[in-house]
């Protein structure tokens, strides 16, 4: 298994290296003068030169690459230009990452159990009104774009009820409970978007598993429905769900831009979009790399979890079960 993890990490590093090349090239090939965009239209030539200098844009691309490679290993991407001028990039990214982690964690804690439960119940009650309600509700909600869902939640929950907060970011120094209270609405929006998807994947896996002879064997053995689900169905049925969650986790960290904007939440997505907007390349580079690393680790974790669940998958990761 260690060999498998090592191989995956090496593959991940190669992916990161390719990504590194791309994000190094961006300011070189982006239209217009990046320095002018950063420093603003009224900047003095000295200021422009200084920006170019610190971005290394005058250096040959190979030098830019080595420098950026270095900053990856030293975790030092320099200072932000425009998003928060003068602050170290890594401080910005780590703060945003922490914020994103809170939001993603709460979202998953709410969404995953509900969606899995929904999928299990829908499968067990296949073709009844319960099944149809779960599947159709999920489908209806996931067809709403997340920011629209966010706006709806603001209008129907945050406006009439004081309990729900318009701003996802709690005031500094708030207790965990208050922070959760503030994060509740975007987490509910994630639930609305993902519930249908995850529930349907779970439902499909569960139907296959419920239909299998080993499930019949378990029922014939006199186990209760609950025991059959817990001991026999779950581990088989949830493998696709875990795989999907693995890929979605990476997406949630960087892709909740719209929700973060609607709820004015300083997460990673928000940071990256602001960096793009203001051509703050150091922040952009660090942010994109961070999302890529999370994505890689999340899928690796999902694969390991599946290998734990399914002995045959262990063969793929080089473990002889």
């Amino acid at each position, binding site marked *: 298994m260690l060999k498998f993890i090592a191989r995956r990490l090496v593959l991940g590093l190669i992916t990161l290296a390719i990504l590194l090349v791309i994000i190094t090239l961006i300011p070189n090939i982006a239209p217009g003068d990046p320095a002018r965009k950063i420093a603003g239209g009224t900047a003095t030539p000295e200021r422009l030169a200084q920006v170019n200098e610190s971005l290394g844009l005058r250096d040959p691309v190979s030098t830019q690459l080595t420098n950026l490679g270095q900053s990856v290993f030293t975790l030092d991407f320099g200072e932000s230009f425009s998003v928060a001028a003068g602050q170290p990039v890594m401080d910005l990214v780590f703060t945003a990452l922490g914020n994103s982690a809170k939001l993603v964690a709460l979202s998953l804690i709410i969404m995953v159990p509900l969606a899995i439960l929904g999928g299990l119940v829908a499968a067990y009650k296949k073709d009844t009104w319960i099944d149809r309600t779960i599947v159709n509700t999920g489908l209806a909600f996931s067809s709403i774009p997340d920011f629209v869902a966010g706006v709806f939640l603001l209008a129907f929950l945050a406006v009439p009820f004081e309990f729900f907060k318009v701003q996802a970011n709690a005031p500094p120094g708030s207790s965990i409970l208050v922070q959760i209270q503030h994060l509740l609405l975007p987490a509910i929006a994630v639930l609305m978007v993902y519930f249908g998807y995850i529930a349907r994947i779970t439902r499909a896996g569960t139907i296959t598993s419920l239909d299998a*002879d*080993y499930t*019949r*064997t378990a*029922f014939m053995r006199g186990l209760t429905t609950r025991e059959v689900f817990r001991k026999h169905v779950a581990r088989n049925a949830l493998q696709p769900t875990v795989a999907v969650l693995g890929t979605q986790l990476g997406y949630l960290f960087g892709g909740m831009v719209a929700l973060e904007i609607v709820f004015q939440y300083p997460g990673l997505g928000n940071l990256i979009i602001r960096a793009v907007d203001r051509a703050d390349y150091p922040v952009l580079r660090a942010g994109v790399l961070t999302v890529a690393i999370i994505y890689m680790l999340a899928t690796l974790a999902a694969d390991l979890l599946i290998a734990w*669940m399914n*002995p*045959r998958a262990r063969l793929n990761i080089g473990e002889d079960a």
Partner: protein
Amino acid sequence: MTTTEITDDGIVSDPDTAALAIEDLELSYVVRGTPRAVLRGVTFEVRPGEAYGLVGESGCGKSTTAYAALRYLPSNGQIDGGRVTSSGQELTSMSAKELREFRARQASMVFQDPVQAVNPVLKIGRQVAEAFEVMGQSKSEAKKSALAALHRVRIASPESVMDRYPYQLSGGMLQRVVIAMALACDPKLLVLDEPTTGLDATVEAEVLDLVRDLRSELNSAILLIAHNLGVIRTMCDRVGVMYAGRVVEEGTVEEVFDNPSHPYTVGLLNSIPRQGLRKTDRELFAIPGNLPQIGEPLPTCVYVDRCPIANDTCRTEVPPIVDRSEGHWTRCHFPDRLDEIPEPEEVSEVVAVGSEEVVGVHGVSKTFRQRGHDIPALVSVDLGFAEGETLGLVGESGSGKSTLAKTMLGVYEADEGGEITLRGRPMAGKATKRVEESIRSLQMVFQNPDSALNRAWTVRRILTRSITRLTGMKGDEADKRAVEVAEAMRLSPRHLDMRPRQLSGGLKQRVAIARAFAGDPNVVVCDEPTSALDVSVQAAILNLLASLQRDDRTSYLFISHDISVVRYLADRIAVMYVGRIMELGSTEQIFEGPNHPYTEALLSAVPSVDGQAENRIPLTGEIPSPANPPSGCVFHTRCHRFIEGLCEVTEPEMHELSPGHTIKCHLTVEQLSQPVEITEKDRMADVAEPLE
């Protein structure tokens, strides 16, 4: 639907003591809101300690009955009437808790496919132990019990098996595990639903032996569901013949199979090749028509639409139960008119096999490469096909039968050195490089017509495409040829405009055969062409193949694991093992013997519907992987006539026993004719070496 069945005292003698008593059970499946009858008044009992068999074709309600015996119904199944009792407890009125208790302690079920019946993600030990934990044993007690249970089903190293995952075990080993789990509670009732259907004949024989031996140790009554009449005959005391959701005949296996009293039973028995029947003797009996759909109203006799002796009485009155002898009854108005059922046709013209070799396989080997290792899947195979000849090819799964077929067809390219010839001229190895003539002359019929035919196309399009590809005919000419070919397959013109999903399994296989015959081939490779079909449909397909051969002088390579079918159709038989031909001879020579020890074991494994005394030679252990073949004779690891110091050292040459009969074995005719002693140790199954 009228239900005039009255539970007859002779059928269910005592529901209070019977291991299973099913009385007048009516059951339907709700399809799109409408209940459709599946069981139309099933009545029978399984007495304590007895083995009762249910036979019938697919769709007759056998499995539904088996599930109903443990009250396990699909979510759309509903019981409309009747009672199911086991030792006096009525299942139909049990609470969920009582039912769980009943399943945990008193009844067990074994399913068809052992690979599906065990949970793929749990170790064997965990699953077997669970069966004991359900009965209240502690974890450590359950583990001990599990070890003992695996030992009881003759697994030589239970500790090692406990620690494995299902995918690391063979089908035969898994079925032992499943049986061990089923016997955990020492059940009063053991339901076996087609327990050996997916297994090789040799493994089937082992599993059946095991169940039979265990019966004497246990007090279980057995309900055995099987479509294989031979399995029922060798395993059961009594048998019920089911048709369209009703038991139509019941009695001891001897009475029912030797003295059948219902037209359906007669049809079933005549549709299988029995007592060494050959294609030159007579045709097989194909029951005309199809099984009624579920839910179809069948107010009188359920078999009336397909019965060759039905008259107006049969169409207006429900047949009574007619006693034939002690405990043997039939649900037929006219059991004394059964001799009016027309005999299957005698085969008048016997066409002799030609002498010229049409297709030849000379010294053909096929080596696959996998992860840097050579896997010799075929080793120097020599075979010849004379005009109009059927060569039967038998051997266990994994022996290389399909590889040989695919190499002949050019799906795989044979290794350098060997050659496949058409009328003496070598063909290219790969089908894509063969000239049209070679492609046309070698065609294939697959086991599963569902996946062999394009589901989106009509039969006409499927056929005309093949005709155009193989003969170059186009447009009207091709269409005319398609009609001709279809007619030769006894397909009616209306079938031409149907799509495969609108056809029954038998009709689909006819289309697949028509496709193969579209270009007038010389040799048709038939890879298990009837093993997915019911016996009555199988009979029609075998008749068709035999008659096409008489008319067109086509040769067949006929691959099947059903020895009696091979015997019926084949002129010569080749026996394969680990990619080598171990024995080749005329069908008479093979069945008269003496044989290669492997053939001897294969032949002894076949359960016969004729109930001959059997002296089975066990073939325990697994077929060796061609990646790692045993030294010397490849069969020496499983051979009951193994000679130490010779067989594991030297690979025997193929040599002639008598003209046309060759074997690959060191033993002499005299040695091979000696009977062998079988010890208990020979019957223990062991796992193969741990997988890499």
